[in-house]
Every structure is written in C-alpha cells, then in structure tokens.
C-alpha cells in the first residue's frame, strides 16, 4: 500500500512569492491533515479535512494561507505571499476514519525555505 505522497520535497523561494504544496493521502483515507513543523518542535495542526469539508481551520493564518481538498482526495496548501517566518517543514497526514482521534499516517513533508 502506497503511503502519503507529498510534493515537492524541497522548495526555496524569496519572500513575498507564492508557494503551493500538494498532498495525496493513502487511498480510502477520509481525513486529511496539514501540519507545520518548525525546527526542534513537534508538528502543529494547520487544518483538518473530513472528506472535502474543512472541519477545523482555526490555526490556519487565513490572511496568507489557503487550502483546498477538491473531491475529498488530494489537497493543496498555498501561501501567498510567503514570509521569512514561514520557513519550516509542512507535513500532510491522513487517517482512515472520521471524527479524529485515530492513527495518522504522515507523508515525508515539504521543507520550505524563504529567503
């Protein structure tokens, strides 16, 4: 069974530029998560989807971040414009069941560097 796929793996951009990350969850997984992981810290949730609905986006900085999960499968996370402080690893995870609290399977992450 293929795991969670993310692309790109690495991205270097200049500040004020836009950037987008893509995630393909494990087949059949209804719940999808985007996390931000700063160096030396644990992952912090940005947004959680159940199917195509964003059920928790309370931690997503909506002035510059946006996300979508069309058709309840793949998801895209966008930052526009990027700031220096956005440099971090962006992790996508998926879970086979709804309602949260279940085991999450993580992708390899996208390491973003903003210059």
């Amino acid at each position, binding site marked *: 069974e293929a795991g*969670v796929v993310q692309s790109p793996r690495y991205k270097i951009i200049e500040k004020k530029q836009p950037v987008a990350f893509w995630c393909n969850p494990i087949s059949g997984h209804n719940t999808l998560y985007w996390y931000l992981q700063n160096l*030396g*810290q*644990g*992952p*912090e*949730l940005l947004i*959680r989807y159940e199917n195509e609905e964003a059920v*928790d986006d*309370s931690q997503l900085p909506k002035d510059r971040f946006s996300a979508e999960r069309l058709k309840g499968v793949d998801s895209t996370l966008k930052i526009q414009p990027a700031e220096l402080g956005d440099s971090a690893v962006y*992790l996508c*995870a998926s879970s086979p069941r709804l*309602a*949260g*609290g279940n*085991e*999450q*399977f*993580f*992708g*390899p*992450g996208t390491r973003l560097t903003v210059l």
Partner: protein
Amino acid sequence: ELKVEQNPLFLSMQEGKNYTIYCNYSTTSDRLYWYRQDPGKSLESLFVLLSNGAVKQEGRLMASLDTKARLSTLHITAAVHDLSATYFCAVVQNYGGSQGNLIFGKGTKLSVKP
C-alpha cells in the same frame, strides 16, 4: 487548552543502558500516541495507548499510560545506536472545536553512543 510536555528534550545515552522518556499532558484524554522521527524523515507511528494502565512493547521500547496522572512513559531497554531519533508523544484532544486533533509534545532527541 490541552498542553503536552515531554522531558527530557535531549537525551544522550550509552549503548546498553536503560532510560525513560516522560510525557505529561494537562487535560483528560482517552488516547495517546508515540511517534518516531529520523532526521529529515517523516513521523512513524510506534504505539497507541487507549486506556489507563495500557502497556505496549515492541523490541527495546515499552510504552505505558496512566490516565489518572496524565502521564505516559516510553522506556528504552539496553539502548542500541539504531534507536537514535526524535520521539514525540501526541495526545488526542477530547473537547471543544478541535476535538479529535492530536496535540504534540516538543519531542525528545535521543542519541545513543557506543
């Protein structure tokens, strides 16, 4: 607000020694996970603990949960170099708008030296 604290944050061990990593959390929860992360890699699930007194073991790692004390431990027995990684505990939030979300600790960076 649920807070998760791990200690120590850094742990340097000699091969063959035993040690314990602690995970404290601030509000009640019915589920706790331990994850492992190697440098530059993603998180790998190690254990899920579902009830008070739960104990799970895999190889040299053993995890336990005391829901009354809001404490989980990850015990390492006779450490080997391959166990060098960062270990995270994550607790499920039981209430509020973020119910069902995982709250992670800051991680314990373990280095096992010969």
